[in-house]
């Protein structure tokens, strides 16, 4: 065999298949952008999540002017707004003449710490105060929905990842142990799983949530929600992993490792769980949306992340009244973001399944 032939594990070969799917790549890119935005939220968002302007309650998308009052092209600017009430006591905004708040890249705004390290007050873009730039409109307190969406992504997107990693670690280990040892241990663990799976997820979530003390601050609530969500997710995975490890433990390489004196836990981690990885990756991708939706559902009914901290779920709770949606349709934006993210995770998961499928079949039925 010549030297140029680079040894590749079968897994790497299967992944190179992924690159050929346009749908998969596009969705992966969208997810990449969303996560990037979430990480650099303070910089990208023109305002912080709690920067209020009560005079701009439900202000619509800002009108950016490129032409000044003399009909000449000018550097883009927005005007300050004032409001009157119409016959339904709804605010109608009008632009104040002779106010010009110019648009700037790397604008000076609220101070923050970039990545928790670098103290700065520069934002990617913004307008001079006292003008306000709303590229997706404002909410009831005049907070910028675009900024809050980006901040909300931090919570909504990270809950999926953290939740999934906790429940998968649990599910893999517990399922692996149950399948590998079999017998009584297996029996006990599986009955436990069934108990969890028996209770409808949403009610279990509510029940667990009610056990969280009221005195928790928002970060603790966030952690509690992650734990609650992952508590619901591990059981079904553990069952499947258990089934797979029952077949895998009969493989001769497992026996060979045992004969070589490798400890049981090490065998499970090194020889059994890695063979469930192609299944697990797909399962992870397809289950992340569940966590995002779970958080959204909790926050939507007011049991999750509390205002003023932004999450897509609690931003959406504004949109529970049909009248609001009719008058200020932009408050549905968080719903669209949830939709987009869920779709993307599902498509990526599906594409992964397609390209890992041959491997998956090989691993479960032998060879």
């Amino acid at each position, binding site marked *: 065999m010549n030297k140029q032939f680079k*040894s590749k594990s079968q897994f790497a070969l299967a992944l190179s298949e992924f690159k050929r799917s346009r749908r998969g790549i596009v969705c992966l890119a969208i997810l990449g952008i969303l996560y990037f935005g979430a990480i650099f939220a303070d910089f990208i968002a023109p305002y912080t999540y709690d920067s209020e302007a009560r005079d701009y309650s439900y202000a619509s998308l800002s009108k950016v002017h490129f032409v000044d009052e003399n009909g000449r092209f000018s550097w883009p600017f927005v005007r300050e707004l004032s409001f009157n009430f119409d016959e339904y006591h709804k605010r109608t905004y009008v632009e104040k003449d002779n106010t010009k708040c110019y648009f700037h890249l790397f604008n000076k705004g609220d101070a923050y710490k970039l990545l928790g390290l670098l103290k700065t007050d520069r934002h990617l873009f913004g307008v001079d105060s006292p003008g306000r730039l709303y590229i997706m409109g404002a909410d009831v307190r005049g907070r910028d929905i675009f900024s809050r969406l980006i901040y909300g992504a931090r919570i909504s997107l990270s809950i999926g990842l953290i939740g999934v990693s906790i429940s998968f670690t649990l599910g893999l280990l517990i399922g692996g142990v149950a399948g590998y040892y079999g017998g009584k241990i297996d029996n006990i663990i599986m009955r436990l799983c069934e108990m969890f799976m028996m209770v409808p997820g949403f009610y279990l979530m509510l029940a667990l949530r009610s056990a969280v003390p009221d005195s928790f601050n928002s970060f603790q609530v966030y952690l509690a929600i992650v734990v609650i969500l992952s508590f619901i997710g591990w059981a079904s995975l553990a069952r499947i992993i258990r089934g797979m490890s029952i077949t895998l433990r009969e493989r001769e390489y497992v026996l060979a490792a045992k*004969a*070589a*004196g490798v400890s049981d836990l090490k065998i499970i981690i090194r020889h059994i769980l890695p063979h469930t990885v192609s299944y697990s990756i797909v399962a992870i991708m397809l289950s992340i949306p569940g966590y995002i939706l779970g958080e959204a559902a909790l926050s939507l009914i007011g049991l999750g992340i509390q205002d003023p901290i932004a999450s897509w779920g609690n931003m959406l709770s504004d949109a529970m009244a049909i009248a609001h949606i009719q008058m200020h349709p932009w408050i549905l934006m968080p719903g669209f973001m949830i939709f987009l993210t869920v779709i993307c995770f599902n498509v990526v998961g599906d594409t992964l399944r397609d390209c890992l499928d041959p491997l998956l079949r090989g691993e479960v039925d032998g060879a």
Partner: protein
Amino acid sequence: MLLEIKNIKKSFYQKTGVFGENRSCVKAVDNVDLVINQGENIGLVGESGCGKTTLARIVLRLLKSDSGSILFNGVDITKGSSAKLKHARRNMQMVFQDPYSSLDPRFTIENIMEEGFTLGKGEWCSKSTRRERIFETFAAVNLNRDILERYPHEFSGGERQRIAIARSLVLNPKLLILDEAVSSLDVIIQKQIVDLLADLRKRYDLTYLFISHNLKVVQKICQKIAVMYKGKIVELASADDIFKDPLHPYTKELLAASVEYRSVKGSAKIEFNDEMRLVDMGRNHFLLK
């Protein structure tokens, strides 16, 4: 005495019927006694499903037996501390039946070989000495040194089997259990591996428990042959005696079938009862009676 197997029994229970109401029992190994002396290779032959693999796994304690004991160098490894078992496993290794499943497809050859050192990490503590030892065993089984980075799926069955043999040799075991180590290979590779085993035996002072259903291969390697049928050893004698003077009807049938491709009548009537024991018929030729 290197290894002594005493009264080993193992049954598998299977639930049948829609609700698992019937439990059927397969006596995979039924009251087997066997002694293996240092330097005396024993062939264990018998048809498929007679319990050879099960017995081998019990010897290595990969399976728990229902009763009986296994003495390695006079130490009972079925009871007591795991230290005893570790010591025995260091000196007792196994090459598995199927070279396609005995090497983890996710591991490189290097990882696979490294795993062989698990119980000898004390002695082979540095990576370079281990590497040295790996190359030594590679040389012994005629493998190239440059395969360490590669994955098992890149090798042929014969090469894989040699890798598996190399893995089992790294810690210099005294007893090597070869479970149909050549059965899945074509005849030419089979011969290569058999010659290799004969050579390794001289070089490393190994003793083989060679499991096979192919009598001709067993004849080449083993001094003694044990014939197994339905979980029992029905005849145990030197290889020459088994071939020249088979006593048990099953042995006769096996010989006729594998050497001459002929079938003999009579074995259908072979029946056991619990009082049957291996009886010496003279010249260390034991028969189940």
